[in-house]
């Protein structure tokens, strides 16, 4: 295998990785312990593997690892944790929007990319930004309510 070294910022830290030129970012992250990035369809339709790259939500199963060189990547491990959830995670908990939880990291990251860009998105913006994430359990209603809750909080001038 023709190994190469790349570097990028991962969850705020500058990191170097040896990669196979043919490997995808999803594989690289998971073999380095970032397992909140999930395997799903592996073809760009489910969003389970979502990460944020340079501010945009992308499917890490579609992105080659080398494409991340020099970029800024955020995975779910870069957000809150059980003790101190991020406001999007908190809203999902409050709205009961998590069942099996497999889609949740991807949902949270798509929502984060959206709220970072548009703190108070209208319905069309929410629909467009979240249309790459599938959820088999919740029927989406509660995820939608959680998004509206975060938006309403921003509208009131709540902490972001």
């Amino acid at each position, binding site marked *: 295998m023709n190994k190469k070294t790349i570097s990028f910022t991962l969850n705020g830290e500058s990191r170097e990785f040896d990669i196979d*030129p043919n490997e995808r970012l999803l594989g690289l992250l998971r073999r380095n312990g970032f397992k909140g990035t999930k395997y799903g369809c592996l073809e760009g*339709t489910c969003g389970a593997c979502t990460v944020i790259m340079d501010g945009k939500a992308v499917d890490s199963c579609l992105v080659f690892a080398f*494409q991340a060189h020099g970029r800024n990547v955020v995975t779910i491990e870069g957000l809150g944790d059980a003790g101190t959830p991020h406001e999007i995670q908190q809203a999902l908990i409050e709205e009961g929007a998590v069942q099996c939880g497999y889609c949740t990291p991807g949902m949270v990251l*798509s929502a984060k990319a959206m709220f970072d860009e548009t703190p108070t998105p209208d319905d069309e913006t929410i629909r467009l*930004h979240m249309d790459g994430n599938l959820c088999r359990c919740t029927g989406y209603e509660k995820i939608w309510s959680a998004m509206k809750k975060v938006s309403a909080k921003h509208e009131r001038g709540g902490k972001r």
Partner: protein
Amino acid sequence: MKINDFFLPTKISEAYARLKKEGNSAWLMAGGTSTAFVKSTSPKTAIDLTRLPLRGITRKSDHFRIGACATVCDLMEYKAEGWVLDRVARRFVNQHVRNISTLGGNISRVFYWSDFPVALRALEGTLTMRTSKESKVKISEAFHNMLAHRGAFKDVILEYIDVPRLTKGMGFGYSKETRTSEGFSTATVAVFVKVDKGLISDVRIAAGSVFPFPMRFLKMEEALTGEKAEVGCIRKIDFKDLDRYALTPREGMTLDYCKHLLKVKISDGIAQAVAEATGGSR
């Protein structure tokens, strides 16, 4: 497709020199989202185009100049009078794919489902390409040449796409059918109309997905030219003309259903374009 090496150029000249050096083993890569659909037995060296200065969209007097590496999301979010590609971008798969797929990638290798080639066949415009020297080619000509290379550009780097800026009296219609919101198209139609003194003076109707490569309906265009610019002009079209084309209905569709779908989509596209050109709502 297997990538066994990669190169991350920041200058177009560097990318082009590497393309020449690698020959058949070079693989120009923009978003890279098409690689899953391309079968190749020999390993490739990827030449990443996304670090080249080819990302922006600029408004010129009568057209927009789009860098080949502008993403579909860039096209969706761009706002300017006379800009219509946001309508195509909005119906493109999902946000994650819109965030990395580029316009250049979408038109440099055309699959039956590719959305932007259909829109660009209707809008026309020009492409700026880097070969041994920079060259400008009309979109219709570029697509025509592409057919000789199995629907992909060969040995060129697409740099810019110039599309017309719609002004008063012009209209664009776009209609795409999918089975699920993010599914591949089963029929895509784009229509450009220009109206002069209440009459249609120019019209281009293009369709994709029902063909391996997007096609124009020249007879239908002829039937509309010179007609009054109102929705009723659709009656001037003889849809039996569709029988002349070798349509490729998508999985699960009969030929009759495919023709019917196309008829509805063409009518929708014309109605939208005429309404816009005559100052009505789309």
